[in-house]
């Protein structure tokens, strides 16, 4: 029992005051239409960021002397967006194995102990394009197998992974869609396997001393995996289950009920079919609004109204990329705002869509006290948009993460500079 307590204390909660993010400057964003998300819209509002944190938000907020002023008149001010389903930083180039670190080998398709963020590359060239379009935080999610591992929520700041981490772990991730990918043969077997592992976790938890004396029966998972699952059966760490078919969602809900697991549904193509049940069980869903293709026999009911219908039924929804192409988990993490626009186009309210890319995912992953809204004490993750953030013609004009504004050129910007004016020869253009 002693060692178990030590283990559960390894949850990291950094307070964002590391050297890379320390910023003594005070910033006053004035005149904009401010969407705090945690409260009603403020016309002609002011947002003050002090020492990297939001210090004031409101209509009649005094501007501290010496503050750097950003005139947001005619513009929209929102919290930085949170993309809650990415492999950003753990998959640079999908087809270059050397850059893929999102899938653990595990044992028998169980990798609960896998802490994906330990392989995160903060120097990924994907970070800047995401931030440039207003994504200031993301959840890095492990993939593959039956239990893929643990996810973390990070801010898009330069520095080390330690600097970036907001909270880790934020969820245990399991995939219950494809028996073959988990080395099994039927959907029911997936659930049996999960139950077995959770049973063993319970037993392991209460017989730890016997285990250490090698006096326990064999378990379905390794010691580290069982340890990692203890917070899941204690209801302290959510279990994010990637699952599409209605029947499979239902099975995951039964399992969650039996083991008091805090369940979240990811992908959830057919979640709309049982929206009322998900709402009654307070189970959040992470899904997108750009897929309507019956892309497999587990997703025949896939439709773009999914997110809107779920919200209408009272389900908490976070929007993620679900079009199924275009590298929306890495290079195009930035397209979260397009997802939100499509969600609105297919029935979600605009305010709900904004919440679904900011505070909703932050809350799902236990970081609502850090990111996702404009309130005093929250990280200074703020975006000033030239217009409706979901529209293509809109630009993220100012992006602050932990109170620092980022304007650095992306790798794409550098390529464009180089090739903007092509010389008459086929030589590489000279520096411009």
């Amino acid at each position, binding site marked *: 029992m002693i060692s178990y307590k030590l283990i559960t204390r390894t949850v990291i909660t950094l307070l964002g005051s590391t050297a890379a993010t320390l910023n003594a400057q005070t910033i006053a964003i004035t005149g904009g239409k401010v969407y705090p998300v945690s409260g009603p819209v403020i016309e002609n509002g002011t947002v003050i960021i002090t020492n990297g944190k939001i210090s004031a938000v409101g209509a009649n907020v005094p501007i501290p002397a010496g503050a750097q002023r950003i005139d947001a008149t005619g513009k929209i001010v929102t919290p930085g967006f949170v993309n809650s389903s990415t492999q950003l930083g753990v998959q640079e180039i999908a087809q270059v194995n050397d850059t893929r670190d999102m899938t653990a080998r595990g044992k028998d398709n169980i990798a609960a102990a896998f802490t994906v963020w330990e392989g995160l590359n903060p120097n990924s060239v994907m970070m800047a394009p995401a931030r440039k379009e207003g994504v200031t935080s993301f959840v890095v999610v492990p993939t593959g197998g039956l239990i893929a591992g643990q996810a973390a929520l990070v801010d898009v700041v330069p520095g080390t992974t330690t600097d970036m981490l907001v909270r880790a772990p934020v969820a245990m991730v399991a995939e219950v869609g494809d028996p073959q990918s988990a080395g099994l043969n039927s959907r029911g077997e997936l659930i049996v396997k999960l139950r077995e592992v959770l049973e063993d976790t319970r037993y392991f938890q209460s017989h730890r001393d016997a285990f250490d004396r090698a006096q326990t029966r064999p378990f379905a998972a390794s010691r580290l995996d069982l340890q990692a699952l203890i917070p899941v059966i204690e209801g302290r760490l959510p279990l994010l289950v990637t699952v599409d078919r209605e029947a499979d969602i239902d099975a995951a809900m039964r399992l969650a009920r039996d083991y008091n697991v805090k369940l979240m549904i990811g992908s959830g193509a057919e979640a709309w079919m049982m929206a009322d049940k998900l709402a009654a069980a307070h189970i959040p869903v992470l899904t997108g609004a750009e897929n309507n293709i019956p892309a497999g026999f587990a997703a025949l009911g896939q439709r773009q109204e999914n997110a809107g219908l779920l919200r209408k039924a009272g389900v908490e929804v976070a929007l993620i990329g679900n079009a*199924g192409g275009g590298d929306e988990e890495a290079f195009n993490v930035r397209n979260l705002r397009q997802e939100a626009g*499509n969600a609105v186009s297919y029935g979600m309210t605009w305010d709900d869509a904004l919440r679904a890319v900011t505070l909703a995912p932050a809350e799902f992953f236990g970081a609502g006290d850090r990111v996702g809204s404009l309130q005093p004490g929250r990280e200074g993750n703020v975006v000033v948009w030239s217009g409706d953030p979901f529209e293509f013609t809109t630009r993220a004009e100012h992006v602050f993460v932990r109170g620092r504004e980022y304007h650095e050129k992306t790798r794409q910007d550098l390529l464009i500079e180089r090739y903007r004016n092509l010389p008459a020869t086929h030589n590489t253009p000279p520096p411009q």
Partner: protein
Amino acid sequence: MRAFLCLLLIGAGACASAPSQTTTSPTPRDTTQADVGRGATSTPNADPFPSTYVPFPSRTTVIRNVNLLTAAGPLIRNGAILLQNGKIAAVGATVDAPADALVIDGAGKYVTPGIVDDHSHLGVYAAPGGNALSDGNEATNPTTPQVWAEHSVWPQDPQFPRNLAGGVTTLQVLPGSANLIGGRSVVLKVVPGRTVQAMKFPGAKYGLKMACGENPKRVYGQRGGPSTRMGNVAGYRAAWIRAVDYRRKWDKWNADHKGDPPTRDLGLETLAEVLRGNMLVHNHCYRADEMAQMIDIAHEFGYKIRSFHHGVEAYKIADLLAKEGIAGSLWADWGSFKMEALDAVKANMALVNAAGARVIVHSDDPSGSQRLNQEAAKAMEAGAEIGLPVSEDQAIKWLTINPAWALGLDDKIGSLEAGKNADVILWTGDPFSVYSKPEKVWVDGALLFDRTDPSQQWRTDFELGFVPFTGTSR
């Protein structure tokens, strides 16, 4: 949370290296645009699977009080369009409509030509997917000009009606990119058909799919080759050398009918048709340096590349594309998923456009194909950001007349002009807004999709019973 779309499903089977034969070097041909379609003599049976397409019943329809993005001139505000006998009869500030015409009040919405996606795998990689429906890559040999995509198309692919609901009225279905030469494409109308012939665009030229770079060498690297890019190029050249030889023999026999005709070869027949200008080459190619080499190969053997597909580095050789008259069928923002896609920039389309080359927004994706307008909008914004704004009048061409040109159909579709086929979309708003969707879609004047009317929403056989019908999910 989903597997990245990978069109490279590796099939089983042995792999032969492309046989090579020496022949006299061909005379480089004039590769101007007029050249395409010039072909005189053809194969013994040029059209063995003829189109049986018949337009669906239509009624004379006038849409008034709409903004028309015509792809043939500036936006017409508050204008009108008349669809009659399957054709666009009139477009303008006002049009005269017969008394019995169905009048639709556009209420300030937008009308555009139907979208043309020149890079689709609908039908050949049909939903719901899996091995049973994986029919897009004949990955048994790196050179398979003998295969025809239409023989893989499943007309009941539920992705077809979704594409139509996204405003796509014409599709080029291509074989995949596993092979150096992947086979013939087919141009389809996005209409319900019992047979693929009933979907085939009458009179459309065939395309030839070729592929550069990583895919062929990855698929064949451990299966007899090619395993390198230089192996790829040797493979293309070996195939064209044989094709030149074959064409010469057949052209001679066609001219004099002396002796027995040469033995037919399905693959070489296709390649010879390309050399005669009767087919259009669609070349999957990412990198600038490889595109330049493919252009040289085309010059060497006297064929013309109609469009480079994907071309994430097209902006690096936009001048060359403009000079050669080759279009770029491009993505707005896909990139970085493999080494050869690393240098993707969102301004690619704007830069290629500014250089004077034809830009086409293509999909290679059943989901993206439904939102090509959104892809164009992203690319427009990327242009604006670097000081190369793209007007809606120009961007609509990327979706319509330019891909129509790539298919050799720009005289029939792709713009709102009198006499053209009445492939028309009525949008719920400005098509470049994230909030706009096609409300009604006409193909040859027939209303085949109406978002407001579930009875006007095509469902494939597969969907019956399997897919819950919601009537709004499009």
